[in-house]
């Protein structure tokens, strides 16, 4: 009863919950995917699934950028970090992500110089201060972080900082959603659209989901009420036979996104022909690389990249979890061999991964435990 006890808007939540129940057609089941890791967090933390009718299932999608990095790219980054004079910089979230031969943390123990930074601008600052080192920034994330990386590259180019480069692993959300829609494993009824990614890309890029696949999508905020309201809006569309893109989070997300952010991304980066996603495999035009114009700041041009593919550990089922085919607790190693302290898969490493969110918040939900042991 966490939600009702703790949440200040409990009355509104109960009212929404009742309206959601009214909209559900008897005998029909509904599957909605929340794409963003932040939403997964809210759902587990507040036990939102317990406030929905049994006929609604929330499926967790691939929206955690740390979770979708394939092991081979981690190995490539560690290889770069091992080159003479290289100083690698990374967001803290990446440090424990396992590659085929260990994580960033493991390689610092073996002598590699890998430093945590808050912002790519901090990495650029290190490059200015240490002109004798090759400073590489491990660039990861969806469209929420890509503009920051792009702005930093532009700044490095403008200032002529020649010892700064990025190892670009930025991914784009739309092709991942399309891959899931095209996957035969999963039948979805609609999407809870990501909040912060949409502040950059806006709502228009989702329109093909409504138009070509006939699935409604509601861009949602991160509070429990936002998510309940988005589920209500999805159900209302289905009940009325509509499939549209709606913006529940318009107080933050403009319909057109952030044009300047989109412009700087496209100035510095271009689409790769294909990119490997953990769990989803190779997806065409789903990731960004540095344009030749900025090759001087592209680690993939400066260093030799092994580019090996590494299969995920056999026991790990992150792939199924990322596709929404398995719930975290259905994975064979969840909570036993794989915990946030000793993660095997990426979904347990990042605090926004579905497994970590469920491990930290969801374990005590009686309803879920009942389902898990059924």
């Amino acid at each position: 009863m966490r939600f009702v006890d703790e949440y200040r808007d409990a009355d509104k939540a109960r009212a929404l919950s009742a309206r959601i129940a009214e909209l559900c057609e008897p005998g029909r089941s509904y599957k909605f995917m929340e794409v963003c890791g932040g939403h997964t967090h809210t759902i587990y933390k507040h036990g939102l699934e317990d406030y929905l009718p049994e006929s609604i299932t929330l499926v967790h999608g691939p929206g955690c950028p740390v979770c979708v990095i394939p092991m081979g790219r981690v190995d490539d980054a560690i290889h770069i970090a091992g080159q003479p004079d290289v100083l690698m910089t990374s967001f803290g979230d990446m440090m424990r992500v396992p590659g085929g031969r260990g994580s960033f943390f493991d390689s610092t123990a073996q002598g590699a110089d890998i430093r945590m930074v808050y912002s790519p601008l901090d990495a650029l600052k290190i490059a200015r201060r240490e002109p004798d080192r090759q400073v590489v920034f491990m660039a990861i994330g969806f469209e929420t972080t890509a503009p920051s990386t792009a702005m930093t590259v532009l700044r490095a180019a403008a200032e002529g900082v020649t010892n700064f480069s990025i190892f670009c692993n930025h991914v784009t959300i739309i092709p991942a959603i399309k891959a899931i829609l095209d996957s035969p494993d999963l039948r979805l009824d609609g999407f809870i659209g990501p909040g912060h990614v949409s502040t950059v890309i806006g709502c228009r890029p989702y329109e093909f989901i409504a138009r070509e696949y006939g699935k409604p999508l509601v861009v949602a905020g991160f509070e429990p009420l936002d998510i309940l309201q988005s589920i209500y809006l999805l159900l209302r569309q289905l009940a009325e036979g509509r499939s549209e893109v709606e913006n529940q989070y318009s107080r933050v997300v403009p319909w057109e996104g952030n044009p300047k952010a989109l412009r700087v991304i496209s100035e510095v980066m271009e689409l790769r022909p294909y990119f490997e996603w953990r769990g989803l495999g190779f997806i065409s035009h789903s990731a960004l690389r540095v344009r030749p114009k900025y090759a001087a700041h592209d680690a993939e041009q400066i260093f030799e990249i092994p580019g090996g593919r590494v299969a995920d550990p056999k026991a790990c089922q992150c792939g199924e979890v990322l596709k929404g085919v398995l719930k975290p607790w259905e994975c064979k190693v969840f909570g036993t061999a794989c915990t946030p302290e000793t993660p095997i898969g990426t979904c347990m490493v990042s605090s926004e991964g579905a497994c970590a969110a469920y491990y930290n918040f969801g374990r005590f939900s009686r309803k879920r435990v009942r389902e898990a042991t059924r």
Partner: protein
Amino acid sequence: MCLGIPGEIVEIEPDRSDLAKVDVSGVRRAINIGLLEGERLEPGDWILIHVGFALSKIDEAEAKAALEFLEGIGQAYDDELAALRDSSIDRG
């Protein structure tokens, strides 16, 4: 890294119009506001920050709600604030 965190603008850097001094849960750091083209920003305005850059301007009520959400999620927000505390993109 993926968390958007709200901050209140304390001042716009006089000689760098793309930098603002911002207060995030009591931590004051320089934040790049270069992506908010066309927004007139002034002290007291709230912004949503991702990895050192403001991505959108938000109102105070939204900022408060977002902060409540972040404070509720615990460790991940603490880590983000700790990282921000170590950040110093203004100097150097």
